């Protein structure tokens, strides 16, 4: 069965600084990988997803993620964080049948002025 580990429960960065959120997955076949963002009291919004092809994926709001099969990782990055990026970020992995998508425990991002 697939699983996702997000090693960092909480990260604090200064506004304008770069950001990297870590995600490691376990899946026996080709994974489908997702990053979602959740603002307080809201549902989840898709930032980006990887199915195949170019391992560097561009998403919305200036985010990108890189799939590294050898490291079973799909880390999320942003070169310059804005205060509005403060939220909870979830990595998720699914198989061909996305009906069985699994989420990581999430990383809460705090942005300092």
């Amino acid at each position, binding site marked *: 069965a697939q699983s996702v580990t997000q090693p960092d429960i909480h990260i604090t960065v200064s506004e304008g600084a770069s950001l990297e959120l870590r995600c490691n997955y376990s899946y026996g076949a080709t994974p489908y990988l997702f990053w979602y963002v959740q603002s307080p009291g809201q549902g*989840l919004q898709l930032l980006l997803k990887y199915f195949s092809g170019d391992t560097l994926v561009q998403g919305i709001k200036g985010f990108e993620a890189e799939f590294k099969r050898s490291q079973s990782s799909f880390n999320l990055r942003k070169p310059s964080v804005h205060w509005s990026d403060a939220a909870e970020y979830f990595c998720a992995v699914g198989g061909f049948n*996305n009906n069985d998508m699994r*989420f990581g425990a999430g990383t809460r991002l705090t942005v300092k002025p």
Partner: protein
Amino acid sequence: DAMVIQNPRYQVTQFGKPVTLSCSQTLNHNVMYWYQQKSSQAPKLLFHYYDKDFNNEADTPDNFQSRRPNTSFCFLDIRSPGLGDAAMYLCATSTGGFETQYFGPGTRLLVL
């Protein structure tokens, strides 16, 4: 705008009193999901419908049931809510397979 709507946004119920949460979608998606999300935890899939086909997760308690009367609506019924069922309940839709899931804003359930 096409969207996933959840009502109510906040629901307070009493211990053991049945409660129903509602989800509707204007996306005309085949698949509708219900997730439970407890504080500071990942969303946990309870079940999903692929059209009229119901798929229950193995560890979803019997206390949780769902109905999908048509493509647009899906309901989550909690027959006898316990204190441990207090959580955010998220509805999502997709066209199936590995396509993007679109989430509603959630219903926060409080059990007194």
